[in-house]
């Protein structure tokens, strides 16, 4: 069940109405049942993995809390790590490892054939395994374990953020399940507005741009530099609107019911450095890696070369987390290099405001890395870069793509995109209540316009969110 589907349009209000009608002590049951129903709408069997992961981590945490000796607690932590990472390794990475072993063996002269296992990747697996992992590590470090199995299961499966985050920490979300939220009209309205804005970003911007991006990137050989450059710019906006749109819907949906999920995006393309970019993009993942990988590796409290190594390795792992493909690893490695490069160039302090050239530079460094993120193969990414940089530009091919997409469709998409680029920073402030509109008729009008834009210019057809594949 996608957020941008008719089913969710029915499912969500039903859950919310039942939620506020039920006495507080039964609400967790409703939310848990709704969350599993939501997840099983993709595939029933997926729920078994989710439940399995939940049970292992619940029990391991209780054991860790009960044991005083660090060495014994570590055994339970290792069990939790192995089970969660094991699930990921089998379902997400087995074919990747297998194909690379076969490639290496063949390079060494053997004649092995690669027969992909083609295991179906359970949706959201990378998100909920990381969420439960953080819980196990926190309990190992001294946080109290959750005794209530139902509430813990809800923490792992809470439907607004189950399939693509934000990856919540137990210390933030679990206590909220113990709080009796009453119906609060202002909060419900805030949540609904955020959901509407998220839908706009997904359906009107991301899915319209996806038509152009997919056409170019799924057939890189047929297009020349200017078309591929345009497609890459479009992808940068597409992935931002797709993922931040999802996050807005998730955060908004939770807010309607009273829950406060963490911010995941803060207008990242206005960053003045890569360091700043990572404090504004997919914040729940970057802080996860900071707390559970970067700092345990030593962070910056080590010798200089080791600090650079720590930064680099964290981003390589982050790339690999995204997908079992060399394209993602290179994407992560590039960001690692950018950060290390930034430090070497003395870019270690927060940049001053108003340095627009830095925003442009940062955006284009990010854009370069997006080429690898979006390309289907590493060779495609290099082909794209070669054509863009090598001057293989041909106006007629670009016009060919415009005609194929439809000239008016293309023109409208670009028009809405320009409007969005201006409106997004303001909307971000409005959604996060850093700015308020005093006159209620302007408020009504604004969201009525957003609704109308979705209905008139939305690219419908229940297109999945990009991050669902991770």
């Amino acid at each position, binding site marked *: 069940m996608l957020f941008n589907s008719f089913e969710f349009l029915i499912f969500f209000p039903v859950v919310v109405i039942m939620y506020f009608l039920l006495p507080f002590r039964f609400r967790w049951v409703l939310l848990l049942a709704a969350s599993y129903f939501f997840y099983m709408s993709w595939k029933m069997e997926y729920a078994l993995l989710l439940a399995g992961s939940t049970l292992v981590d619940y029990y391991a945490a209780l054991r860790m809390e009960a044991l005083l000796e660090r060495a014994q607690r570590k055994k339970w932590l290792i069990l939790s790590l192995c089970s969660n990472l094991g699930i990921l390794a089998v379902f997400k990475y087995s074919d990747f490892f297998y194909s690379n072993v076969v490639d290496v063996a063949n390079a060494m002269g053997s004649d092995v054939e690669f027969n992909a296992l083609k295991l179906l990747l359970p949706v959201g697996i990378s998100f909920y395994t990381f969420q439960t992992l953080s819980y196990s590590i926190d309990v190992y470090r001294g946080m109290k374990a959750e005794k209530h199995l139902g509430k813990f299961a809800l923490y792992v499966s809470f439907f607004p953020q189950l399939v693509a985050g934000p990856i919540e920490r137990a210390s933030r979300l679990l206590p909220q399940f113990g709080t009796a939220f009453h119906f609060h009209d202002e909060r419900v309205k805030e949540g609904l507005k955020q959901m509407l804005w998220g839908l706009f970003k997904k359906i009107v911007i991301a899915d319209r741009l996806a038509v152009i991006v997919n056409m170019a990137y799924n057939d890189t050989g047929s297009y020349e530099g200017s078309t591929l450059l345009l497609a890459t710019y479009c992808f940068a906006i597409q992935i931002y609107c797709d993922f931040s749109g999802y996050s807005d819907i998730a955060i908004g949906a939770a807010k309607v019911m009273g829950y406060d999920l963490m911010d995941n995006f803060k207008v990242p393309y206005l960053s003045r450095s890569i360091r700043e970019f990572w404090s504004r993009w997919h914040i729940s993942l970057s802080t996860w890696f900071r707390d559970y990988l970067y700092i345990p590796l030593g962070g910056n409290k080590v010798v200089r070369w080791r600090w650079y190594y720590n930064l680099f390795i964290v981003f390589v792992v982050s790339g690999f987390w995204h997908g079992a493909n060399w394209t993602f690893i290179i994407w992560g490695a590039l960001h690692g290099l950018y950060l290390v490069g930034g430090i070497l160039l003395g870019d270690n302090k927060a940049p001053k405001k108003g340095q627009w050239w830095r925003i442009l530079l940062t955006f284009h460094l990010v854009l370069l890395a997006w080429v690898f993120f979006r390309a289907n193969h590493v060779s495609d990414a290099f082909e794209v870069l070669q054509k863009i940089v090598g001057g293989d530009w041909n106006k007629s091919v670009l016009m060919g793509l415009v005609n194929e997409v439809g000239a*008016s469709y293309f023109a409208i998409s670009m028009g809405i995109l320009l409007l969005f680029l201006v409106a997004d920073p303001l909307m971000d402030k409005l959604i996060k209540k850093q700015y308020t509109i005093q006159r209620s008729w302007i408020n*009504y009008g604004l969201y009525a316009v957003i609704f*109308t834009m979705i*209905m*008139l210019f939305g690219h419908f*057809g229940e297109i999945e969110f990009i991050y669902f594949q991770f």
Partner: protein
Amino acid sequence: MLKRFFIQGVVFATVALALYMGSFWVLSTVEHGGIPLIYRTSEAYHWKGGATFQKYEEFDETASYDVLVLGSSHAYRGYDPRIFEANGYRTFNLGTSAQSLLNSYYLAKQYVHPNNCKLLIVDVFEIPVESDGMEATSDLVQNITSNRAALDMTMALKDIRAINMYLLRMFSKNKPLLYTDDAYVGQGFSENTDSLATVVKPSVDTLLEANELQVCYMEKLFRYIKENGINAVVVNHPAPSTINAQKHAQFNRLVERLTRKYHLPYKDYTHNHSLNNHDHFFDHNHLNQAGVHIFNTRLIQELQQEKLLP
């Protein structure tokens, strides 16, 4: 607090709906180059006119037909009412472009009754079962005569594009046609005399990806036929030899299961023919007029032998 929320919700919904419908009206009224602007906003809007509009305008709901045909382009290009008429059967072809099972069901409910049809031919093949139904719904919602059937399809599809299409139908009620189809020859049939224009490549061996909604509506259609005592036959018309055999076998298992359940005869001519790829087809899965002639003549004979036609 709840009352205030409810009132504000109603006010917002009213403002938002008024703005949406008002903007839609403006876009469907203001024209550029003779075409309403709304068509420029999305590919999903089907133009008013074409074979679908012409055939449903021509179809006489009060008349009695010997044979009616439902289905996609296989149907409206593959069953020629003139050939049936030459054999003494008054026939009308209700097939439309990409017509999915969902569409066939609502068309059957609106236009096919035991009193106006002695035999209903339901043409089926793989593509309509795999489709989401949007393309055909867009065409039908814009062009059929029945508001009820158009609304039913819109609601059944659960897609904003279909809702927009229905709104466009309402706003273009009194507007002239935007185009007509030259291949349309009347009685619901579109003729193509060309021989195969392109080389038919062997199909890639893919599996059937049946859309659950369409499978559900195939069953609903067969149940409707049975419960209303409509005499019907399910037909899969001839295909070039290059068709994907594995997918076809899967499809047949699905159709056979449902036709058996509702005691409907299923005649599969996909491979069961002596037509050749070049002379009797005009593309990778449509018969040309020479192919239609041979196929229809044979079909009529077999339907007579099996007492499905008098």
